[in-house]
């Protein structure tokens, strides 16, 4: 059963999805999705490719009509809510290439009926925050990919919305730009009090930024909680990653270790490394016994490491390792 944190009272929810469903013929892209997103939080929305994230987001913002269910913004049906209340940074770059950065932002300011003076001030501050001031009068077609990404984000917030939807905003960004983006997202939350819905495939990003995270797959909600609670829910403890000198004995070792008390889960990592991943409580204390059992099967440990359970482990645990799309 899906659990959601219950430490928020209903009146603090700024965005609610109620039984949201989207069907395309026989395909159910989003299946009865119910979520409550609190005002002022950063909400991580995770799922593999084709899980239904973008479809859900498009329904949230009004680009797509749900087959059934409702989207409420501050308790009001989305269609009745002011358009200014929500802003989206789409996954793709959605810019007018022939216009300058300033012109792109000004056009959108005008489209939201912002007074020209307000738009001007907002354009200046956003370009500064996203280090695009020097390119204010440069045509978008002349910008680098990273700069375009940052302008794409600026366009989502030019009208100062309460809710900002960032659909994979860090795609294609170098580490420096990504850190700048993270700072900007935190600024939106902490200084401007915005509610941010963030989808990303970078688990480190979701872990670092999100107050709460929902993981969906095949259009269904799998888990919804804080990153810490999620990591606890799928299993406490640490992850031991072990590589044997003879990979053909992985299966025998896995079978043998399953009986070790304290090992919660063990599986072979399906990549070229041929490593075995062991999730265990008190992993450090279990190491001697694990090595002893490996010796008993007449093979040797080539490499072994211990790390903390990560959001990626949670993600893979919930959604599996199979490729999508």
């Amino acid at each position: 059963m899906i659990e959601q944190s219950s430490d928020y009272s209903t009146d603090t929810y700024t965005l609610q999805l109620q039984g949201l469903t989207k069907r395309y013929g026989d395909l159910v892209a989003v299946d009865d999705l119910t979520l409550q997103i609190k005002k002022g939080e950063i909400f991580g929305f995770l799922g593999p490719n084709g899980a239904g994230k973008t479809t859900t987001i498009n329904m949230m913002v009004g680009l797509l009509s749900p087959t059934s269910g409702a989207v409420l913004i501050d308790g009001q049906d989305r269609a009745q809510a002011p358009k200014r209340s929500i802003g989206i940074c789409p996954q793709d770059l959605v810019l007018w290439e022939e216009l300058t950065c300033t012109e792109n932002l000004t056009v959108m300011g005008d489209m939201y009926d912002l007074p020209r003076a307000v738009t001007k001030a907002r354009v200046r501050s956003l370009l500064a925050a996203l280090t695009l001031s020097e390119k204010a009068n440069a045509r978008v077609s002349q910008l680098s990919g990273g700069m375009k990404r940052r302008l794409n984000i600026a366009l989502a917030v030019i009208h100062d919305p309460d809710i900002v939807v960032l659909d994979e905003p860090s795609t294609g960004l170098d580490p420096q730009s990504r850190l700048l983006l993270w700072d900007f997202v935190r600024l939106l939350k902490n200084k401007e009090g915005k509610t941010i819905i963030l989808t990303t495939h970078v688990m480190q990003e979701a872990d670092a930024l999100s107050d709460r995270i929902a993981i969906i797959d095949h259009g269904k909600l799998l888990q919804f909680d804080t990153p810490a609670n999620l990591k606890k829910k799928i299993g406490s403890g640490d992850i031991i990653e072990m590589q044997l000198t003879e990979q053909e004995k992985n299966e025998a070792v896995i079978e043998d270790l399953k009986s070790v008390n304290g090992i919660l889960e063990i599986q072979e990592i399906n990549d070229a490394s041929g490593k075995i991943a062991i999730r265990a409580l008190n992993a450090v204390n279990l190491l001697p016994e694990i090595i002893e059992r490996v010796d008993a099967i007449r093979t040797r440990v080539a490499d072994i490491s211990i790390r903390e359970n990560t959001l990626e482990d949670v993600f893979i645990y919930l959604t599996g390792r199979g490729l999508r799309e």
Partner: protein
Amino acid sequence: MIIFAFAFGSSNSLGTGTAPHEIAVINLDQGAAVSINNTTEHINAGATFTQLLENVTYPQTDTHMFTLNNVSADQALSMLKGRALDAVITIPENFSQAVVSLTNASTRAETTSDIGLRVINGSAAQLPVSTTLPKQGNVTSQIIVEGDTDSNAFAAAQSLIFNLLQQYQGQIQAMTIRQVDATLAQKGSNSSINYISAAVQPLTGTRSLTLFDYQAPGVIVFALLLQVGSVAQDLARESARGTLGRLKLSNMRSFDLLFGTLLSWIVFAVAQILLLLGVAVALGFEWFGGANSIVLAVLIGLIGGIASISLGLLLAAFTTNERQAAQLGVLIAVPVFFLTGSFFPLPNEILGTAFGTTFQVYDLLPWTQVADALRQILVFGSGFGDVAAYVGFAIVLTAILFVIGVIFYSLVRLRSELRPE
């Protein structure tokens, strides 16, 4: 392909083939009184000749040479200018009198010839005592065949009409001679008296105009129709790039986008018309009416431009990317252009008659009205009053097309889009 074949095929058949020629006959003939066997009868040779034109068929076929359009003189002229007619035949008031003169002259000539022969042969005593010769008439009449002398269709129709008139005159003479000979029991003789004739009257304005002059307005309409694809591409680009989605999430109303699109393309249309006219003039285009005609032509061209923008909106509703829009734009604009009849005359496809005007299927296209109005103004030097009906219809048809375009674009593109992730 079918429409291309239709356009080119109809052009060939109407120009030089054995298809019926669209003509109108304005019969002004007042008729004439003829005394036959001491009784006076009223004849109308104009009506008889009109009947002949209506019934005559191509040799060894059932195909009529002419399709007669029952229209007034003004309507006929207007249709002629719009190339809905190949020729307009005006039969003068004294046509019947000229026919009577021809008959009398033929009778006198034949009778005189017969008496002469009998005197020479020594048989004059056998002449009937009651023989009196009809009065010599001197009425001549000329049928006017009006049309665009640069048009192949007119040339073909005109030659057929001249030929028929000659035959008609010959038949009258032959019939008269047969009657005289029956009375005088004598074989006839030939006389060549030319009381009725025909003359070509070039359509106003076409005498000094070249084919280029005539077709320049059509080129303007063609250029305006090419805007269909450009408008559709413009809007499809917004849709494909996602910028339309961004705009839809803002406070922008459908009207803002569509009216904005309309305005920007109107500016383009005006520039395009001026540029085309400029180039045409530079290439030797001669138009009637001076600067006023140009201003009027630009304004009328603008209606065609708005019609093209409206069709572009409609097209954009059903295209998802620029390439699709460009391809569909050409696919639709070119056949529509042919259907305006700007380059080629089209076969009669009469829809009905209203306000004293016969409407063809093609008249439902605003560009047909625009092309006709432009031609009237630039080629024939007509004023606004002459083209008010064309302009009125063009505006109504354009407004209908714009509303349809806006409705479809709003419904399909400006609502929540139903596309999968």
